[in-house]
């Protein structure tokens, strides 16, 4: 009997190499990919509760006077993320089989499998070195995944790569600093030693936490690293973007929950309000992230970029939830993480289906697709209702928990930011709906069909999932509470229908809201049904007074009001945009490095100065060794 844990990481890896050989058989390859993710989901499902499952390997490298052992262990938190990630992956994989046909095959299955391997490793890593190794593996493979052998994506991926590398560097530094404190790479031991460090050297402890936090922030695109998703998500393969947005944005969240939260909760840190200073910084960063993400999403014209920023905003919510350090906040954050996975996979998959059929990413060039792809439209519609946090779908309960937690901790301005972001979400969510699915259908898309069956199935499943979680939040809340109990928090078992808050009379029965909604719907339907029948006419028939646009030598899509959808609003923010565009700063920095690089290159081409440089070297030695 081979170790379950080992199998879990080996099977994706082996399949990765297998698929490399038969890369051209794309149907087989992607079916294998589905099989692997299915296997992972099943194994993870059976692993629930088996928290003593471990696997370790001795590398024969001596460090801290003992042999280095890398180990994986099944732990509640890791299981929680890993399980839902692999379920999401499975759904995406099903979609991918249909998506990667002759024309669209990005030939990235092997790299994606390595990414999944790293994914499992990150979530189950027991020691920092395993964690770091898998983290780097994830960074590198996702770079290749995003770039996927195309030139323009490669440019975007470079941006992502540079940030990832910054992250891994700080992570490595942090890991070694902390490991030196505890003389072991064990994660739990390092948490304890950092808590102790807070008692003696506050600044150093904050510095160490900061090193970790930078990495986690980068990977989850928390401010000030919010700008890479818009580039990376947009250019990555369309069926990979859901994975990027749903699973990969959670690594940082996982890191924060795993490592930073226990420290902030248990360490002896001077309080600021009801929480402490570092947590407040976390909250403010989360707030800025969500506000900025929202604003930038509103102005975006590329739909994948738009939802990239939307993801950033959602990460902001999660971070805010975590920063409350209260159980409700953490519950909300974990719940929202999963909801975000489901919602964003629905949205990005429906967009991928649109791109699959039309090949267009710019919203204003599309329109009216709801009439050609009604199922995709429904998936998207439910997705955005969820994403906007509207009951009775799933996004609501988690947002509600986070808001409640923030309010109960008196983090007033953070709540306002949250409200701003979630109201702003309507704006961008609706924009895509109006531009892509509603409005005039351009002539060239007159004959496109609904997404193929293999795409429709996962989309439908996700749609039902959103509804199910929306009505019965216990589906997620029960695991969430089980995880929290497993992590040692003092929580009750969750109920199927109700979520709890710290305020009086504030326990929310989500199922009831569903009933109320259905009651409202029933009444509205009564009004609708009892009114007079309507006639269906073509769109041109009404407002163009029956004269077809072609009569005037124009095309229907000219009537789409979508390019500058929020132009007046955007103009309000114009003076501010330059200030917040960090990517411009980064680009400028890159330019400077390039210029220095060119200068140094010239230095090396010169023959004349070679001896001079040698003398300068001698002078450095003399000055450094003798005079100083």
């Amino acid at each position, binding site marked *: 009997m081979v170790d379950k844990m080992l199998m879990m990481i080996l099977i994706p890896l082996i399949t990765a190499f297998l698929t490399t050989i038969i890369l051209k058989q794309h149907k087989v390859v992607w079916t294998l990919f589905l099989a692997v993710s299915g296997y992972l989901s099943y194994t993870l499902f059976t692993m629930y509760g088996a928290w003593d499952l471990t696997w370790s390997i001795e590398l024969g490298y001596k460090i801290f006077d003992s042999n280095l052992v890398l180990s994986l262990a099944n732990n509640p938190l890791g299981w929680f993320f890993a399980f839902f990630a692999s379920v999401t992956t499975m759904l995406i994989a099903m979609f991918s089989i249909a998506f990667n046909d002759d024309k669209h095959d990005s030939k990235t299955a092997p790299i994606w499998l390595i990414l999944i391997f790293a994914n499992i490793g990150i979530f189950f890593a027991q020691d920092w070195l395993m964690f770091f190794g898998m983290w780097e593996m994830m960074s590198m493979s996702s770079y290749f995944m995003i770039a996927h052998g195309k030139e323009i994506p490669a440019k975007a991926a470079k941006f992502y790569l540079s940030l990832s590398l910054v992250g891994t560097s700080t992570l490595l530094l942090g890991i070694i600093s902390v490991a030196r404190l505890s003389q072991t790479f064990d994660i739990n031991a390092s948490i304890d030693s950092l808590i102790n460090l807070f008692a003696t050297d506050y600044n150093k402890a904050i510095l160490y936490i900061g090193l970790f936090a930078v990495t986690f922030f980068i990977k989850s695109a928390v401010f000030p690293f919010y700008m890479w998703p818009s580039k990376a998500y947009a250019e990555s393969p369309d069926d990979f973007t859901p994975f990027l947005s749903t699973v990969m944005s959670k690594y940082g969240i996982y890191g924060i929950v795993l490592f930073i939260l226990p420290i902030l909760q248990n360490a002896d840190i001077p309080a600021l309000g009801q929480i402490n200073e570092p947590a407040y910084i976390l909250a403010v960063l989360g707030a800025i992230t969500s506000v900025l993400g929202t604003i930038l999403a509103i102005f975006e014209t590329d739909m994948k970029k738009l939802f990239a920023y939307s993801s950033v905003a959602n990460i902001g919510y999660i971070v805010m939830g975590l920063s409350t350090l209260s159980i409700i906040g953490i519950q909300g954050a974990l719940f929202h993480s999963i909801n975000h996975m489901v919602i964003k996979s629905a949205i990005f998959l429906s967009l991928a289906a649109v791109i699959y059929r039309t090949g267009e990413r710019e919203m204003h060039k599309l329109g009216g697709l709801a009439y050609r792809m009604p199922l995709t439209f429904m998936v998207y519609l439910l997705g955005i209702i969820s994403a906007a946090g509207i*009951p009775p779908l799933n996004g609501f309960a988690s947002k509600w928990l986070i808001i409640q937690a923030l309010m109960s901790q*008196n983090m007033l301005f953070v709540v*306002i930011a949250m409200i701003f972001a979630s*109201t702003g979400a309507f*704006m961008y969510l609706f924009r895509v*709906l109006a531009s892509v699915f509603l409005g005039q259908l351009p002539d060239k898309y007159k004959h496109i069909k609904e997404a193929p069956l293999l795409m429709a199935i996962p989309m439908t499943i996700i749609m039902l999932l959103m509804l199910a979680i929306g009505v019965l939040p216990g589906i997620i809340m029960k695991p969430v509470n089980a995880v929290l109990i497993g992590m040692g928090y003092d929580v009750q078992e969750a109920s199927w229908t109700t979520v709890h808050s710290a305020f009086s009379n*504030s326990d929310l029965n989500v199922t009831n809201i569903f009933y109320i909604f259905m009651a*409202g719907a029933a009444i*509205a339907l009564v009004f609708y049904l009892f009114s007079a029948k309507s006639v269906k006419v073509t769109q041109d028939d009404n407002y163009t007074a029956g004269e077809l646009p072609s009569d005037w030598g124009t095309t229907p899509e000219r009537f789409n009001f979508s390019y500058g959808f929020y132009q007046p609003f955007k103009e309000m923010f114009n003076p501010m945009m330059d200030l917040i565009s960090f990517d411009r700063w980064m680009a400028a920095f890159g330019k400077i490095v390039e210029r220095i690089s060119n200068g140094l290159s010239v230095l090396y081409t010169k023959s004349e100065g070679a001896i001079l440089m040698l003398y300068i070297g001698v002078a450095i030695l003399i000055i450094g060794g003798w005079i100083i």
Partner: protein
Amino acid sequence: MMTVFNIILYSLFAILVGLIFLGIGRKVAARVHLRYGPPFYQSIIDVIKLMSRESITHNFVMDLGMVMALTGLIGTMLYIPIAGHIAFESNTNIIVIMYLMAIGHLGMAMAVSASGNPYANIGVSRALTMMLGYEVPFFTVMLGLIIYNQSSSVMVINLAQAGSIWNWNIWQMPIGFIAAEMALQAMMGEKPFDAMIAPAEIASGPMVELSGRYLGLGFLTKAVGVFVETALIVNFFFGGGTSVITFVIKQLEVFLIAVIFDNIFPRYKIEQAVKFLWIFPMGLAVIQLILLAI
């Protein structure tokens, strides 16, 4: 069974009150304009008329959207306590109310967007922008209330104001009330914050393509919306009400303030409106919040 009966009763009540409010609003507006104006039940007649006429639709999304709009607002209404009574046993959470209202906006926007008319889209775009403008100050005021009462339940806030008239929150937090009033003006789409409708520029914006039953449903939505919004203010600042009659009178009062302002102000451009909302009501709300927090 009782619940079903309650739901129908409350819904019909809200629609009726809302429509009558709209009628009264038109009457008052006419009087401000020195006209005679239609009878106060004119809106009811309008709705019946519209519902019975044949209408045109472009696609299923319009139907879906309009039903969704009404659904959302009726759902919201069912969640709000009216003079302490409530249709459906729940905790009357403010945040739930805010989000439920959004369904209505979303459905409406979707329906009119589906028509493909550029004016409708412009209207929707403005409406959504305006929404970002007023939700934030409005919520900030509510946040003050929540913190003050340590509960996000409308019922609890309501009960806390029981007893003397001096217990009303309008005296406890007058600055917040002013802010909420301003936000309410925008929420109801009244001048100076009616850029999304702007009949002169974009031909009533969202409504441009609606006819017959769709416009009727729109009217109903608007009516329930007025009811919900005024009910919120009454619950928050005017102590709710001991009976349904006093509750409705307070609602009317709030509504009439809005109508009168509507008739004496010109219209802001959309970005001006948002700026105004983010400066004045927001500023007041924040001041209120700080005062409460201290």
